[in-house]
């Protein structure tokens, strides 16, 4: 089985979000970039397929040279090879088109992506990718088993979960649950050394549709101070929720 894990390079979850250039760009000053958490779960599941079922695991990212440390980290965690499509990922449709090209060239059976990137929160790349390639797709995937060309995927639904039977080739939008939190790996020294020798192919983008573009950003208005209610006067909270907030 040949697996491609799609990795989105995103600001660390603790990052302060600011905008620059007249609020037209995300300000990366002082921001640490990481593997998108949803992709980290997926990558870890891919490592399981590698170790238990002999799968080959490649990782791909669509991004400029600054995304290389993140993709190297994926190699250090254990991916066999990496591909970077050398262009800025500003639109989900465009990114999906670039990844579709990578998948066609590499003839992958299983594409593991994440449910969403935590930066632009598109939640669209894996589903568009699957559709462009006419592959099966399961989103918000929290468990994945593969047996030959059959796959059983569990997805999270509102208030529970659903088990889905399907076949490869398959694209999933993975998330927390795909592996245990404790299975996530931090690259060790040996992994980092080995990653330096692994192949990182840089390919140029193909032509695609720039379906959307963000013309401006802003931040939520600052929040007013919290209204504190005395612990001895819980009735006051009920009154406020009813009369002021009007939520009960």
């Amino acid at each position, binding site marked *: 089985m040949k697996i491609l894990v799609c990795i989105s390079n995103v600001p660390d979850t603790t990052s302060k979000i600011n905008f620059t250039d007249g609020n037209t760009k995300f300000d990366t000053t002082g921001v640490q970039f990481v593997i998108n958490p949803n992709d980290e779960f997926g990558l870890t599941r891919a490592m399981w397929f590698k170790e238990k079922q002999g799968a080959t695991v490649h990782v791909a990212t669509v991004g400029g040279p600054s995304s290389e440390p993140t993709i190297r980290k994926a190699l250090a965690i254990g991916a066999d090879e990496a591909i970077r499509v050398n262009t800025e990922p500003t639109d989900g449709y465009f990114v999906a088109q670039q990844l579709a090209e990578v998948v066609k060239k590499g003839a992958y059976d299983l594409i593991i992506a994440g449910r969403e990137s935590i930066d*632009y929160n598109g939640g669209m790349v894996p589903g568009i990718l699957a559709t462009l390639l006419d592959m099966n797709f399961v989103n918000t995937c929290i468990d994945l088993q593969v047996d030959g060309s059959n796959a059983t995927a569990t997805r999270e639904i509102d208030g529970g979960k659903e088990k889905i039977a399907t076949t490869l080739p398959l694209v999933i939008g993975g998330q*927390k649950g795909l592996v245990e939190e404790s299975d996530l790996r931090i690259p060790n020294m040996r992994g980092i050394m080995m990653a330096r020798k692994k192949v990182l192919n840089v390919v140029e983008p193909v032509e695609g549709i720039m379906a959307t573009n963000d013309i401006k950003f802003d931040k939520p208005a600052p929040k007013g101070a919290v209204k504190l209610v005395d612990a001895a006067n*819980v009735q006051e909270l009920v009154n406020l929720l009813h009369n002021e907030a009007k939520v009960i």
Partner: protein
Amino acid sequence: MSVLVYTESDNGSFKKNAYEVASYASEVAKQMGTTATAIAFNSNENTNLGNYGVTKVLNVSNDQLKTFNAKAYAHAIAEAAKNEEAKVIIVSSSSDTKFLVPIVVGKLGAGYAPNVVAAPENINPFTVKRTTFSNKGFAHTQINTEIKVVGVSSNSYGLVENSTQVDIEDFNPTFTASDFSTKSVEIDKVVGKATIADADIVVSGGRGLKDPENWGMIEELADVLGAATACSKPVSDMGWRPHSEHVGQTGKPVASNLYIAIGISGAIQHLAGVSASKTKVVINTDPEAPFFKAADYGIVGDAFEVVPELIEKLKEFKAQNA
């Protein structure tokens, strides 16, 4: 050339978000000088859409679609969009919808703006405001393709009543076997309880509750309020509560009217996922807990004293206002 809206139902009844997206679609149709057409699957309530400005419903009634199937639903929606020559498609942000939308988008070569929080700022070029960076910012996004898909953030636009005459037409999309190449084999879901996605009120517990045995009062509080229960990430990681209750940046998003956080510190990843809620209440022993900076109302106090008291006061309140 109408605006197409996908109105989601469950067991024949529309979800609340269906009326919200219908309201939104009517507004877009008005701005564009056209009408709003809905597509609904096995719904018994199609006429209700007329209360929110929809003038036509494409009624798909098909036993094969009784259980949600993203690929097949997406196929039907794309086919309806073609038939109606719809240039704008409005959808919700539920997890089922977020599953099928990228498939529709891929089929139609459409541009998609998810998590949109307001009516379009402009029709030409088509520009919408949406949340990004897990609610820490907003983007004003222009959609450049001929067909545009707008995902409306839950509970952001609200319901706008606008009574119109509604025509209901049967619509039978043509399916092939490949539309059913992913099959639901088992659904394991709580029944008869509000879910995080649909509930107006969410009551959430964190590590401060110390033990899964202590969740009784969280459930009781949720019961009194008709609320869904939720939890922080460590609580689900430790197996105190099911994963489907975990909320936050890497869990379920919450966009309720009222979110009550009990024994939750308010880590940045937690807040990112719940901050779309309109009113936030925190109950925590530590006045320095970051949640107090994000909340509207707070009680500095011990959950084991405050929550039972709150349950009593709410019961009295409910009895008086019944």
